[in-house]
């Protein structure tokens, strides 16, 4: 298809030299520095990383995975999903089911069934719990369940060319419907209370510092891995088509590309990433309930991506850290101001920072270099 007049730029390296060094530093911090500071530096020391901080950072890294997934579908493909909270929660629920089975007979009722089922007077596990005692099956389902739902939904939505705001609203409706469903007791997901009181994972106690650190490292490595994957995808031809779809979908079609497989692939992949994030989130936080599927959560994911900067991969990760850091600080010091702050953030980012924090930094940098050049 290329004509001599069009010069495609040479494929960019996966990461620049400084990019690689930053990546490796991040990897070392997550895998070595944080565990040492948390587990071996004594609690009184100034360098000690508290358990609270580990839990918080672990949680935010899960959110960052969601923001990255959101960036792939929104920043690069231009499809704003308000359903990513659902995929996150689905991954979390799959993990939660496994953790509930791991409780075994240690629950309040000393039964093989999870407590809430005993409470509902159920005699056996419902069909969708069949695979929940196998860890391998759980790992598969964590990506398969959100992936399958996203695939089916996306296939029908993209095939009939639902796009823009329509798509956003329909994904929101889907999430809302799922939330109502999970709130029901008879669907077998613990109703209002969801799953909690986890005791073990893979037979090991879940509430120990070592296990918390292991999950933290696992989350960090997953995040960095997903970052590389996203980087690779967006640099490849696949990513270029996605960006073309975002900028002018009809032209992409006129050029002979069918957008459907591209959109569907990135949509499904994005949902799977959210599922993984949810599955890592639940054992660290210790609870999953239908509240995770509320519309507010899904929209917040979009804001993390927007604050950091859309269509930059570092941006959404930074955005997740900035917004959630502010949240955990503000909800403690001035809880009544948190919603004002979040609301103002939504408005400010859309009005004044269309390229997010990363865009702002870039702009400042280029202004500086311009100032230095002449």
């Amino acid at each position: 298809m290329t004509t001599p007049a069009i010069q495609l730029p040479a494929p960019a390296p996966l990461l620049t030299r400084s990019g690689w060094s930053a990546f490796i530093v991040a990897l070392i911090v997550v895998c070595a520095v944080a565990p040492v500071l948390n587990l071996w530096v004594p609690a009184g020391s100034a360098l000690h990383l508290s358990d609270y901080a580990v839990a918080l950072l672990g949680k935010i890294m899960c959110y960052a995975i969601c923001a990255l997934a959101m960036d792939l579908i929104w920043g690069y493909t231009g499809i704003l999903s308000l359903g990513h909270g659902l995929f996150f929660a689905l991954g979390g629920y799959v993990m939660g089911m496994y953790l509930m089975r791991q409780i075994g007979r240690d629950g309040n009722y000393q039964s093989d069934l999870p407590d809430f089922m005993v409470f509902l007077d159920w005699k056996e596990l419902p069909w969708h719990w069949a695979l929940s005692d196998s860890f391998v099956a759980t790992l598969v389902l964590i990506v398969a369940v959100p992936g399958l739902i996203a695939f089916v939904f996306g296939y029908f939505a993209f095939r009939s060319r639902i796009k823009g705001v329509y798509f956003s609203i329909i994904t929101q409706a889907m999430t809302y419907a799922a939330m109502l469903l999970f709130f029901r007791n008879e669907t077998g997901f613990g109703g209002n209370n969801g799953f909690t009181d986890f005791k073990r994972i893979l037979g090991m106690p879940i509430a120990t510092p070592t296990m918390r650190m292991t999950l933290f490292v696992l989350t960090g490595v997953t995040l960095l891995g997903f970052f590389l994957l996203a980087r690779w995808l967006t640099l490849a031809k696949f990513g270029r088509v996605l960006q073309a779809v975002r900028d002018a979908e009809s032209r992409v079609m006129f050029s002979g590309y069918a957008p459907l497989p591209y959109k569907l692939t990135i949509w499904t992949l994005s949902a799977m990433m959210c599922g993984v994030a949810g599955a890592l989130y639940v054992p660290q936080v210790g609870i999953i309930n239908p509240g995770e599927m509320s519309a507010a959560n899904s929209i917040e994911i979009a804001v993390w991506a927007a604050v950091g900067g859309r269509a930059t991969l570092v941006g959404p990760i930074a955005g997740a850290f900035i917004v959630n850091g502010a949240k955990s600080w503000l909800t403690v010091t001035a809880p009544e101001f948190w919603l004002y702050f979040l609301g103002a953030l939504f408005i400010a980012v859309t009005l004044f920072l269309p390229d997010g924090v990363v865009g702002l930094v870039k702009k400042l940098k280029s202004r500086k270099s311009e100032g230095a050049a002449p």
Partner: protein
Amino acid sequence: MFPSLFPRLIACLLLLCAAVQAHALTAESARAMAAGDTDDRIAALQAAIATPDEATIAFIRAMGEDAVKIAGEKAIVIKDDKGLDPVTGAEVPVPDDAEDIVNNNRMRGEFDTALASLQLMSTEIAERRKAIDALREETDEARLPLIEKALAAEQDAALKTHLESIRARILIGSSDPAKRLSAAQHLAASGNPATRTVLLEQLRSEEDPKVKAALQAALKTVEERLQWGERLAAVFSGISLGSILLLVALGLAITYGLMGVINMAHGELMMIGAYATYVMQGIVQKYFPGAFDWYLVAAVPAAFMASALMGAVLERGVIRFLYGRPLETLLATWGISLMLQQLVRSIFGAQNVGVENPSWMSGGVQLMENLQLPWNRLIIVGFALAVLGAVAFLISRTRLGLFVRGVTQNRPIASCMGVNTARVDTYAFALGSGIAGLAGCALSQVGNVGPDLGQGYIVDSFMVVVLGGVGQLAGTVYAALGLGILNKFLEGWTGAVLAKIAVLVFIIVFIQKRPQGIFAVKGRSAD
């Protein structure tokens, strides 16, 4: 207990005594009612109330209040520490060895029913209605003579029907198959849900084949009639929900449908309208307590103005910078909605506030025994239609409407014609927001008013607009009513939550087939 009722009862009973050969309370019957074996006492009581006189009633009431003593063979009523003869009313000395009468719970129940039965003879229709209501579930055959007597005396047609069905219900438990048969035939005419239960119970134990057939036939008729009531009730609550959705969606039809602004804060504008109603209620209550019933007259424009003003501020301050960027608008307005919610929480507190119905909105129209249309719902349906008419008029007949349509169809050309497009945008957005305020005012009359009032409706209302098609008032109307009725019908069938899910799934599937809604815009303006 019933000070004002008492003289009337006496008057009524005097008449009755003249008509029926009443034998007045005697010392023996009083003694028999007051002491002895419970079964004997009940028998005596029922014999006495079959032909009551004033002394009997006073005596029964006294017994119910434990104000009767037994001295030897004589019953004495104790009133203000003095002994009264139950028959003559004359003062008698109370012997020291007089014993209190002992009433077990069964006996007390008998006293209460006896008094209720006697109320059936009241000249006051309200009293009789109360008494009939109390007897509704009665199946004791011993009440039969009394009810038949009341039936003979009853003039009011509605009460007469009730009495007849009570009689039939008692008769249906009778040991005489002929009586049961006629009772079954009679009950077929009833539309009372309780009748179904009675018929079903009797059917279970019935042995006589003829009666059984009659019972089955009666059950079928009753069930058919009840079903009609239920169906109509579902249609009505569907229309009622639809009218609320319509009010909510009408504002969106302007801001989203015509202007293309995704306003996630629409629900919060409704909330502002509801709170404006609440504030207006407070003002009227404080300064014009006499006019409290009419506070809504002031609240409707207040709600409209409050929300319209907020809408104008939002449009000027935020939304106008985001025209043509729908996804960004979505996020920014979501942020606005969060701030408005928190604002209301800071001012009014996180709890729901109480908005009362004016007295003329309580109660309802009783169409069938199991179908009542509440006034507040009826009024909201009417209100929704009125708002719809006003909006339709405004959009299609006025200069502002013309400008709005012109600007949405082709902004540059409208601008060339001298239309101040920026101002038209503000007006149109304020109008849509004001209608949201009206919806909030209406909602305050049927639901809770709290900071998250808007959240529950936002998904539904967007569904209405999406389903109805963008830029279409007619589509909005059909979609709102259709969704409302569909929702309520499914609710009766599958329960509220599953109904909601089913409706959402239906919309998602429907959008697959017709991405532009029910009424697609045809031609070049479609994309």
